[in-house]
């Protein structure tokens, strides 16, 4: 089947099977390997991307379901000049990542949260991350990073 979508602001299309998952289309066809696969039960969140502005698990969306959609992945998160976005920078500043495998999903979920709720409290952040598992950080520094990012006014403007 033919599929076309917009990925990180650029048109992308390809031929896929019905069963091809969005995450595999991104990784295998578009070579955007920043979106990871960490489980097969739609729980770990390493594959979270934005689809039409909402966070989705790319392992639980068929590529054909994304026909015509706007997809944003971790590769599209940096500023146009290549520098880290506010959220990415906050993750580095607060040591919100270790092995880095869950990180793309964490950043995408954090971005979705701050879009809806620019100033979440700690409880809200922790609850919002229920679908993102990190095995390295104990979440402490991830929560700190998101709190710090939320304090940056430019987020609200984004």
């Amino acid at each position, binding site marked *: 089947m033919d599929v076309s979508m917009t990925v990180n602001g650029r048109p992308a299309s390809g031929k896929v099977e019905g069963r091809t998952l969005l995450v595999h289309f991104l990784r295998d066809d578009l070579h955007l390997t920043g979106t990871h696969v960490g489980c097969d039960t739609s729980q770990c*969140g390493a594959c979270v991307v934005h689809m039409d502005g909402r966070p*989705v698990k790319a392992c*639980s969306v068929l590529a054909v*379901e994304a026909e015509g959609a706007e997809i944003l992945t971790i590769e599209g998160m940096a500023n146009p000049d290549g520098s880290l976005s506010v959220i990415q920078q906050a993750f580095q500043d607060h040591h919100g990542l270790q092995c880095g495998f869950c990180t793309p999903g964490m950043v995408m979920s954090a971005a979705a949260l701050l879009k809806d709720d620019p100033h979440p409290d700690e409880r809200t952040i922790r609850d919002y991350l*229920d679908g993102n598992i990190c095995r390295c950080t104990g979440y402490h520094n991830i929560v700190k990073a998101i709190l710090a990012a939320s304090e940056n006014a430019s987020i609200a403007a984004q």
Partner: protein
Amino acid sequence: MHDFDFVRPQTVSDAVRALATPDAQALSGGQTLLPAMKVRLAAPAVLVSLMHIPDMVFVRADGDVLRVGGATTHAQVAREAAGAYPALASLAARIGDPAVRSRGTIGGSLANNDPSACYPAGVLASNATIVTDRREIGADDFFQGMFTTALEEGEIVVEVRFPIPDAARYEKFIQPASRFPLTAAFVARHSGGARVAITGASESGVFRWHEAEVALTSDFAVQALDGLAVDADGMIADLHGSSAYRAHLAGVMTRRAVAAIV
């Protein structure tokens, strides 16, 4: 997963037609179906997406009824039902996680009738009506046991109509791994009486706790439940809790819901 043909109809009638093909299955968000297909527990020949039918995506308060389109995501219900039916919006806001709520739909949840799903409790306690492409089904008739509903082959949940209760509350105790309810209670105080629905606990899926309803109908207070307990017989026992524990939790969650309402 096995490969399949994929269609995305724009209307309910096209969807019904597509579902009439052999081994066709509806995809209504896919947050349960796709993981099941990955481990090859499900292998449809044709997958019919219901996510692109505009007539099935809406949240509308219509007097004292809240109408929700069958393909409406949990995220949309959480946002748009908050004014008219806050307890239902709160339930929707706590299903799965944010990414799952972006895709999962009410119709998909009801058609699947997972014994640990949230929506069946809200639907049953609200005494909602499930509107399909061919008929209307009352909540009491709709749920027919674990993963079993009154839906016929190829029948589509087009809309769910919730009579809005005077007050309601969903109390959920999560299973720590899946984050599904280990046991949850939805208590609704209707003008005609109280309804209490328990999910997660029973081997027969969501059920009404009739003794509690009778007690609360005559006196909507926590004390009215004194001495009442859900029978552990028929409750699920697994790695995460015995049947006695689940029966006990049903009582605790119900009491907490009542306490939060009064």
